[in-house]
């Protein structure tokens, strides 16, 4: 019951020390705003607060790499097209549209040359959500849902497609259809709300989520486009997940989402720590030295994740479960070039 009350305090943003000064919080400058509407939501079904939606209004998806879209859009395509932006010239061959002849250049070079223009396509954003048991601690899961909704809003506003792939805590992978337009946010919410979950007991450990499978499935379907993974990466095979994320041809971003429970758990005395996913037990004596060592180890691991992701072409946005969702999107993701 005490744990239940504490969890509700977290959900309501009224937990002690919830002012946003948790150690190891986002280092990307995403502003942490205290307030009931910005507190970490409790679950995937919680809709975005209107204030957050308002702040996301002017932002669009952006791509660093060329994309291959299904429709014309605002992102540089891997193909040539009919935009106004000049791309290149090539010799005229029979069958080319005579209207594409560059007369000036043909005169200068003494042969017929035609103009080639850039193509601009829409992009297809993939959001992979980690809904494993570890994400259920603190407000991480709700934050992941909000980030998916926020990205859906940004994508829809720019006319781009979005798809959400969820690695559930029962080891399965659930995916929404490709969504576009104003209804994308609602559809994403519907998809997230339908993710099956459990009311487990403290002694049940379902095992880790199939995060690598979810990433590969997201990358394997649809045209080239950015992919955003929202996860705490608290799995032993996190390197495989990051490596899989970096294999895509589009932009890859990892929102490394940790919570206050992960950074500085409230422990006292001798404790048997039970892994929520695997059931593995680690016995510790929660002294100040041990807690400090844990904090240092966590920081080292975060740095290792960042270095490993960089080597595999994955941009990392470190986030806290009580960060501002709009801040993560408009500041953190903007630095990675996925959002403009």
């Amino acid at each position, binding site marked *: 019951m005490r*744990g*239940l009350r*504490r*969890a*509700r305090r977290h959900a309501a943003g009224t937990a002690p020390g919830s002012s946003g000064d948790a150690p190891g919080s986002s280092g990307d400058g995403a502003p942490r705003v205290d307030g009931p509407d910005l507190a970490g939501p*409790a679950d*995937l*079904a919680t809709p975005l607060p209107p204030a957050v939606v308002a702040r996301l209004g002017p932002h669009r998806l952006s791509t660093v790499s060329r994309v291959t879209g299904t429709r014309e859009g605002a992102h540089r395509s891997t193909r040539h097209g009919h935009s106004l932006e000049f791309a290149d010239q090539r010799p005229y061959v029979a069958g080319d549209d005579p209207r594409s002849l560059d007369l000036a250049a043909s005169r200068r070079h003494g042969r017929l040359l035609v103009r080639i223009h850039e193509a601009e396509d829409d992009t297809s954003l993939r959001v992979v959500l980690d809904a494993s*048991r570890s994400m*259920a*601690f603190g407000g991480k*899961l*709700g934050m992941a849902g909000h980030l998916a909704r926020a990205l859906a809003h940004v994508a829809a506003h720019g006319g781009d497609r979005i798809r959400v792939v969820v690695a559930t*805590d*029962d*080891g*399965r992978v659930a995916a929404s259809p490709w969504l576009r337009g104003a209804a994308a946010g609602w559809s994403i919410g519907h998809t997230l*709300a*339908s*993710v*099956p*979950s*459990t*009311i487990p*007991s*403290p*002694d*049940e*450990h*379902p*095992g880790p989520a199939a995060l690598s499978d979810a990433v590969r499935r997201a990358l394997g379907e649809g045209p080239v486009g950015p992919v955003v993974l929202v996860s*705490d990466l*608290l*799995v032993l095979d996190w390197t495989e997940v990051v490596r899989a994320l970096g294999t895509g041809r589009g932009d890859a971003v990892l929102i490394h989402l940790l*919570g206050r*429970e*992960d950074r500085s*758990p409230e422990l006292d*005395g*001798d*404790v*048997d*720590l*039970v*892994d*929520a996913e*695997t*059931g*593995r*037990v*680690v*016995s*510790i*004596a929660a*002294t100040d030295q*041990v807690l400090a*060592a*844990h904090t240092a180890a*966590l920081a080292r*691991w975060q740095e290792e994740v960042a270095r490993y992701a960089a080597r595999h072409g994955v941009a990392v946005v470190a986030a806290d479960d009580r960060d501002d969702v709009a801040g993560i999107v408009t500041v953190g993701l903007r630095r990675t070039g996925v959002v403009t």
Partner: protein
Amino acid sequence: MRLASPWGLAALGLLVPLVVWYLLKSRRTRRVVSSTMVWQSVPQAMTAATPWQRFRPDATFWLAAFALVVGAVALARPYAVVEATLGDHTIVIVDASGSMSAREGDTTRLEQARRDVATVVDGIGDGQEVSVIEAGSQARVLVAGATTADEVDGALARLRLQDGPADLDDAFVLATALQRPDQATVMHVVTDREVPGALVADRAVSIQPVGAVRDNLAVTRLQVVPRGSGTADLFVALRNWAQHPVEARLSITVDGEEVAAEVVDLAPRDAVDRTLNVRGGAGAVVRATLVPADDTVDVLALDDSAWGVLRSPEQVRVVAATPGNVFLTAALEAVDGVEVTEVAAVPDDLSGADLLVVDRVAVPAGVTVPMLLVAPTSWPAGVTAAAPVDLPALTIQTDHELLGSVDLSAVAVAAATPLSGDQMTPVAGGTDGDLVVAGRLAGVPTVALGFSLTDSNLPLTAAWPTFVANAVGWLAGAPPTVPAVAGGTVVVDVPAGLDTVLVSPPDGRTVEVSAVAPTLVVDRVGLWRVVPGAAAPGSATDTPAGVAELPSLVVNPDGDEGDLAQPPPEPVAVVTAGDGPELAPGRQPLASLVVPVVLVALLLEWVRATVVARRRAGGRGDRPGGASRAERGRDGRWTSSVARAVARVRP
């Protein structure tokens, strides 16, 4: 509630080590966290715990402490004060008669009596004493002045069931002897028979009945009458105590071999007699056994059989050495089975004689046959004759067997010689000395009269032939035609020349019977085998013990013991007269109520430990990529969110 042993509460001191154990015990709390991946890389994670922990009692502690407290209370022997059942001295008389061996369900009446007594004395308190008397054929004190229930339980374990009736008179005499004037005495009688009102009058007595009206079959009598030519007539009496007709099989065996069998239909509460003729040698054992077709109608086994011994018709050959005495010879010849040979003097060869009567002639030395001496001219060694007296008083008449149905009050003696002897017992006499004595001289039964029949009017009285018949029976041993009954007293025939015989009842004991006091209380039905014991000192007979077997005794059940149709007595609580003893309050032990509480507490602790261990063991199983039970909520439905469950997952 009061405590009989307050020192038992000292066991509460065990709470101290229990608490200290909890202070020292490294009790790790379980805490479910999102992941232990980072913790595994913390090198200091497994540091030892601080030895002194904060006191954090859990359910196990409270259960253990509760069990400890209740156990300490149990050791203190709590009790409740109840109405008086025990006095300062409580005398328990337990009926150990044959009917107490009747089955009552899956137990016996005697076992029920044991439990009842144990229940009564369970509340024995400080300063109270309990005595237990076994009321069998002969009452005996099992324990006197016991101050603890354990002592009484030990005495109850020594209770020995007997086959005869209970001698409650004897038991109450013993109980009265155990009373002390400074103690308030209460008597508890546990029996299945009515207690005579005279016994309980003016006493603080409670009667606790055991048993109920039951069905029973019995062989109530078996008489063997020798008919000569190696045959004998058997008279068998059967009895059905049940309220309904019973079919049973009557079996007759001679020395273990069945010689006759018959199916007998017994009407309700009916008695049936059967007469059979069997053949067998002298000394053969006849047994009549009644086996009902339905075992449930016979709850008492001891009276299902009766025994008898085949004997040849016997004659007592009497040699009467007398100058002539018509009174003597007539009285001898009047006795059944007696053959009298009259001689003038004691012959040298007495072989073939069963009894020697010496009347006013000399007694030779070394006589080995029983003797009836009537004023002989010389007395044998061992009998001392005093100076003759005239008109001696004959005022003392003992209850010796010789004087059974004999009244000597009208007898007058003109002159007599008072007799005495170390081995002789006075039978009759007066202030001048004993005129009739009996005993054994060198192992030879001897009866001596210190006066001549011609100097007395004894031969003219009705007592004379009876006295002679008694003397012949006592000296020569009358043939026992009627088997003894359990609980009765029999006179064992100790042959001349033996000092003792050894009697072995059916229960395997061995009882030594002396020739001086050859009586024996037979408390077991069945065949009592008799073998010679020690030879008499100075006897010419030198029969070593155990060489030859003497005629066996047969003891048959008492007919009244089989009457289980009698209702048990009405229960009577302790009644004290107005000036009767004031009883101390009784105690109702409560430990029997406390102990189950301890057991329940320990059981709960075990169940809790088992369930917790099983849940933990089940929860640690890895199920990679799969979900079975965990996929569903407690209500069996899919829930909409993982995070909604977080609050429940969090410790």
